[in-house]
């Protein structure tokens, strides 16, 4: 594995020798990862490379078979999922994961409420917390769902559900945002909008983003740093131009399909 070329400083997230087995299958194999604060760090790799599994280990949905996860210098390997959310790790899902029979507003409002001290207050009405609604509406506006805020989430078209997924994540105000294929299944004309959303999210203070993506255009556009996974292991790491120029990556994963994008990215290092 190659040494870090990025500016030193304490990483917001560090994975050490993570391994996850499902029965006999090794989905994540000895993965070590440093994610620097304030960066957009992309994880790419072919289907089944173990990207989602790695995100599940970081957010706490799975416990690793071996290895450790550190968040802001603290070991969190044994910290349960909901507590990691309170520590500042938020995530969105590759397969849309919302509250279908609640309104769009309620979906997002719940994420605001989750980080408050109001959860066990049975004496007040949930909707009497005006600031929760204001905050939720702000997140809804950020992704452009304001006109449909009072609609049931299940009634949204697929693209709308993907945006709602983002709004729920934003409403949790996490320090570390994990986006698992935010453009999965989104029509190509909407992908640009999504890129805009992510650019906007990125522009906001002190946010670190881990993004798993297959869309190379998006990856090359928004990333500060890229980790390439293959068969459960890290194949390569580097800046977008370094990755674009990496022959091993090209042959193992990117192939001819993305050569245009890669060449362009290799030409002008924007990071």
């Amino acid at each position, binding site marked *: 594995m190659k040494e870090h070329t990025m500016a030193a400083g304490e990483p917001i997230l560090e994975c050490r020798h993570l391994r996850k087995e499902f029965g006999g299958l090794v989905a994540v194999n000895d993965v070590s990862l440093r994610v620097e604060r304030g960066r957009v760090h992309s994880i790419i790799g072919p289907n089944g490379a173990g990207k989602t599994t790695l995100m599940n280990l970081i*957010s706490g*949905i799975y416990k690793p078979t071996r290895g450790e996860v550190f968040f802001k210098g603290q070991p969190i390997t044994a910290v*349960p*999922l*909901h*507590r990691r*959310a*309170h520590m500042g790790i*938020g*995530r969105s*899902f590759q397969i849309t*994961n*919302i*509250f*279908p*029979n*609640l*309104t769009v507003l*309620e979906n997002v*409002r*719940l*994420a605001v*409420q*989750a*980080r*408050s001290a*109001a*959860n*066990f*207050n*049975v*004496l*007040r*009405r*949930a*909707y009497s*917390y005006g600031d929760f609604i204001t905050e939720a509406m702000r997140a809804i506006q950020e992704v452009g769902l*304001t*006109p*449909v*805020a*009072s*609609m*049931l989430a299940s*009634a949204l078209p697929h693209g709308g559900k993907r945006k709602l997924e983002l709004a*729920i994540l934003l409403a*949790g105000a996490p320090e570390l945002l994990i986006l698992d294929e935010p453009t999965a299944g989104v029509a190509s004309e909407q992908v640009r909008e999504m890129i805009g959303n992510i650019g906007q999210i990125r522009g906001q203070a002190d946010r670190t983003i881990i993004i798993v993506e297959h869309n190379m255009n998006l990856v090359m556009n928004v990333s500060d740093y890229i980790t390439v996974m293959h068969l459960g292991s890290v194949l390569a790491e580097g800046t977008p131009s370094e990755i674009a120029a990496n022959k091993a990556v090209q042959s193992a994963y990117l192939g001819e399909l993305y050569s245009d994008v890669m060449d362009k990215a290799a030409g002008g290092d924007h990071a």
Partner: protein
Amino acid sequence: MHIQKGFQWRAVGKNWLLIAAFILLIVFPFLVGVLTNTDPTARRGLSVYWQGIMIELLIYGILTMSYNILFGFTGVISFGHALFFGLAGYLMGAFQRAPELADGGLLIGILVALVVCAGIGLLIGVATLRLKGVYFAIFTLAIAEMVYIFLSRYEYTGSEDGFTLAALPEWFDPTRSRLTFYYIAAAIFVFTFILIRRLMESPTGAVLLAIRENENRARTIGFNTLTYKLMAIVLAGILAGVAGILFTLLNKKVGPEMLGTAYTVNPLLMTIIGGAGTLLGPAVGAMGLRLLELQLRNVQIPLGDVVLDIGRILPIILGAIFILVVIVFPYGIVGTFTRWRLNQRARHAERLAKQAEALKSVS
């Protein structure tokens, strides 16, 4: 502006219905008295008969509302709800008829029954709520059946016959003071409804709904869902216990059938028919279905030479009604209506927002 106004009108409309139901509940005994020309305070007669029916409906309503907390609002399917209903009856009865406790036994019995219901809910919850879906349901069924078998075999609890209560104080006796007992049951029914409504409007209730909709997502945004599910099962257990206590007092006896699957399956079906996850649905479903059952039980239709005994084919009729309701009202009677209204409102809001945007782009 328009949206705001719509909201408030809806709140008024909704409460108007509830207020009407509340008033009906209060005047019911006297209404029946006038309609049947009988004395509501007498010990016999049609007034007393209808009060008795209504008390039973209210008890079914409370039991079904308690089941709805788990099934309808939290999305937890329990097959052991009768455990709380029956056990509370047995415990209350055991203390009530203990001679050394005299009249104090009733109060002690009620308290013990409710505390045990809460405790058992907590125990079952801690032991099994981590199990997913059907495993939890089967575990609760197994526990309820175990207690059922124990109570129906154990001599001290009266084996298969159960036991009757000792004499109740006159003012509290559902036979001698039925009108008083009616108002006690009605008050507890109203209290249960308001309690559940307040809970579901609170932030805690919002989390229960989130768990029903998508527990994993609820955990991912930071809710310790196990804690909330425990709260739900404890509250549901206590309220089912309340229903069991009232039922035992009304019948002045307990028997193992109170722990039978009927008292789990009926609330389940009644919740579905009325509308799982709605506030009014379970009460509507329970009271409507039970009333139908009671009324059809003794109906006989002469068809030429043969007499069709509706009571004997009642399960078939109720089954057919169930299938029909599920087809016509996929979200239950109240649920389907509420959903339709919610969609209507969302479309209205969307239209307004679009108009506003159009106006903005014009000016």
